[in-house]
């Protein structure tokens, strides 16, 4: 692998999915992938004027079109040092709230709710939830109407431009939007109650880090010049790369993000976790009533958070309209600068969206766009893994596929890819042979023997390493002798294979190869590997490290390696010799 420059954007829409591989009692692999063809949007904006860029980038996604527009406007205005009048900011907030109302109402009622009330889809659900289905559709249309009034069209409206608006909506149009918001309130309150009281299953529950825009003046909101994390840290949006650290995986055109070597989540649940205490009015009351510790670690609560945000939006819309009506329309502010660079961030309905541009002599010379789903991809994989492993542990293998569907859908990646797409595969007993062949195909791996000598089967990793050395295999290390350079020299280009006894809960002598990262998410395996993963391996190395495990039959002091484990060791040596 050569050096990879991260300049891409892939919308998650259409063709994508998750595959989990089960090997005996262990989930050995979970992959979230997007199959849609690459569009190279960042590259095609090069050489365009800032105005053309703002026309083009919303075409990334029809569902988040105005979030893309808004993020691009914020980045361009930062780069060109343009400050827009208060009325412009307010009407942009209104259009952004419209998009959120449209997206959230569609997602919670039409995509998420059928799962929880036991119907295959929203149309079938109408038999029991007729009112909900009908008013949810009206709510979505209302969101569309706000988008049209402010942006000029339902989809890809061009009215918001750098420095302002082509035409300001009239007083009557704004008043109609305000009045309609007030009419929806009883239904919105019912929506919050419905989604906050749903029975969200416990698997997957695990801590993560949440991130979102930090709105000014200690308010709840959807834009900011700073990112706030659930651990209290803040990051200037201009330094967004410190948060996103993008990298590529070979199984998907959708890029990934890590903060300080760990996955993080963005979206409605992230916003409620970071900013919930700042809510006002009815939204505050509902937050106080329903928010609890489970919201901080269970991605399924994203549906509850979306419902809470609908309430925030319906309370905020009349305020925005009232404030906007007090202010005069303003002419478009034009740029004086022809050079500059800047990043802009907004909260798309599904999470934080970054646009970054460099402008040279009036044309785009560099662009970088980072979508929410690209940032969530690692956590989607991790939570799917946790759910699958927990269900497998409790003997509920048949529930894995549906539960993973639920997890992916809760992240609200986008409409068409939120439809059923999880797959469960069973690995054959000989699966490890193919994987080993894959790892040794192009380059020889570094082997590291792990375990405790003299404790029967727990010494198998060390024994295997010694046997490899005797057979003249290069770069074989024992845990105790392992030098940092052995790992750092690989630089992620050569795979590192840890050899150890692993309790898969299978028959003694069972062999499996697991990506080290998957092992790190597993509570049983992690105590052993976590220090290694976090302390000594960088991200590229972690992604290219594996655990070759053998199921022990017993771990007793002073006893020799058992018969089945010995045979497994021979099989592995045979395979490596090939």
């Amino acid at each position, binding site marked *: 692998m050569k050096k990879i420059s991260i300049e891409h954007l892939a919308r998650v829409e259409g063709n994508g999915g998750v595959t989990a591989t089960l090997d005996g009692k262990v989930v050995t692999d979970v992959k979230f992938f997007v199959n849609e*063809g690459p569009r190279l949007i960042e590259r095609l904006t090069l050489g365009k004027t800032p105005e053309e860029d703002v026309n083009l980038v919303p075409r990334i996604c029809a569902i988040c079109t105005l979030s893309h527009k808004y993020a691009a406007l914020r980045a361009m205005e930062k780069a060109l040092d343009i400050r827009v009048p208060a009325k412009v900011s307010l009407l942009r907030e209104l259009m952004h709230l419209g998009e959120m109302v449209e997206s959230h109402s569609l997602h919670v009622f039409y995509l998420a709710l059928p799962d929880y009330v036991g119907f295959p889809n929203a149309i079938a659900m109408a038999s029991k939830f007729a009112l909900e289905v009908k008013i949810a559709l009206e709510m979505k249309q209302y969101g569309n109407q706000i988008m049209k009034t402010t942006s000029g069209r339902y989809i890809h409206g061009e009215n918001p431009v750098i420095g302002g608006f082509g035409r300001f909506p009239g007083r009557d149009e704004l008043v109609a939007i305000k009045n309609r918001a007030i009419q929806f309130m009883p239904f919105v309150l019912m929506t919050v109650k419905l989604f906050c009281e749903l029975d969200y299953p416990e698997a997957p529950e695990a801590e993560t880090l949440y991130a979102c825009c930090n709105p000014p003046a200690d308010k709840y909101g959807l834009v900011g010049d700073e990112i706030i994390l659930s651990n209290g840290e803040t990051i200037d949006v201009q330094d967004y790369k410190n948060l996103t650290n993008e990298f590529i995986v070979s199984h998907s055109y959708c890029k990934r993000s890590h903060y300080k070597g760990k996955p993080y989540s963005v979206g409605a649940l992230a916003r409620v976790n970071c900013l919930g205490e700042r809510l006002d009015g009815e939204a505050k009351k509902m937050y106080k009533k329903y928010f609890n510790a489970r919201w901080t670690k269970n991605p399924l609560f994203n549906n509850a958070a979306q419902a809470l945000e609908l309430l925030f939006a319906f309370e905020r819309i009349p305020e925005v309209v009232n404030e906007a009506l007090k202010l005069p329309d303003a002419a478009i502010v034009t740029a004086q600068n022809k050079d500059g660079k800047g990043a802009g961030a907004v909260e798309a309905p599904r999470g934080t969206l970054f646009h970054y541009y460099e402008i040279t002599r009036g044309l785009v010379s560099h662009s970088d766009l980072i979508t929410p789903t690209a940032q969530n991809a690692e956590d989607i994989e991790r939570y799917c893994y946790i759910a699958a492993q927990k269900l497998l542990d409790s003997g509920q293998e048949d529930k894995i596929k549906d539960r993973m569907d639920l997890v992916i859908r809760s992240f609200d990646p986008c409409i068409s890819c939120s439809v059923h797409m999880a797959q469960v595969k069973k690995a054959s007993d000989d699966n490890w042979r193919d994987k080993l062949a894959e790892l040794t195909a192009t380059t020889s791996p570094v082997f590291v023997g792990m375990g405790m000598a003299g404790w029967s089967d727990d010494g198998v990793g060390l024994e295997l390493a010694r046997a490899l050395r005797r057979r003249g295999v290069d770069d074989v290390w024992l845990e105790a002798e392992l030098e940092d350079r052995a790992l750092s020299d690989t630089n992620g280009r050569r795979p590192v294979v840890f050899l150890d006894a692993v309790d898969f809960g299978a028959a003694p002598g069972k062999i499996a190869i697991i990506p080290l990262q998957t092992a790190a998410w597993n509570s049983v395996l992690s105590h052993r590997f976590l220090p290694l993963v976090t302390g000594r391996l960088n991200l590229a190395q972690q992604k290219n490290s594996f655990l070759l495990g053998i199921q022990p039959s017993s771990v007793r002091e002073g006893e020799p390696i058992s018969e089945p484990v010995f045979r497994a060791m021979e099989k592995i040596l045979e395979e490596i010799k090939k």
Partner: protein
Amino acid sequence: MPKDKLKIGIYELTGCAGDALLVVDCENELVDIFQAADIEAFLMAKSDNNDGELDVALVEGSVTTEKEIEELLDIRKRSKVLVAIGICASLGGIQACFLDPKEWEKNLKKVYGEVDMINTKALPSKPIDAFVKVDYYLPGCPIGREQFLFTLTRMLNGNPPELYRFPVCMECKWNENDCLLNKNILCLGPLTAAGCGSVCINHNLPCVGCWGPYEEANRTAEFKLLLEKGFSEEHVKNKMANFSGTKIVGFFSQFKGEKK
């Protein structure tokens, strides 16, 4: 009305899904359409999709992977009439701007490095008529609600669709807007296919050309006018290229001929 209900399929290749979403956004009319026609396949709106014979296939998005070529050939084989919806299917879309395959490959590498994607092979973006015969084109980014419903209802009644054969300027006059070219603002209205209802000019903004080239445009006169107004040839062509996909080549080669 034809005796049997028309069998319709709506498909998405690579794009923003905006055309399919616009069909979904026709909520009130959609109920009637679903009654008047059999919607055999529509991934965005339903999960029980069939892949049998169709009277009409509506295809959104451009072709950017080998898998999509197979999908498209299969759709064509099963359909009596194939309609390209939106500029990605009709023209290749904004992603079809790297017309030279080498240039495209260079940019693909810039983005993805040397990583081999294991699931599907990527190709430079092309409109669907690069692979199959297309019977009708509904341009737009996204398609217009009125034009879509008008086209579909005509087909439901067994009539061929009547597509708009005039530039954005026509609609702009109907809307009684001031011509922005008179204010020395570069507006692509005269070169762009109509159907949007001149929405940008209605908002005091110049047309960005998002419905793609209007084939019968009076390019010579328009170009002369723009040059007189002080806009450079390169500037006009670059702006026009944003939404014209691979069809920009033919549009401007014809243009050149006229200029002589």
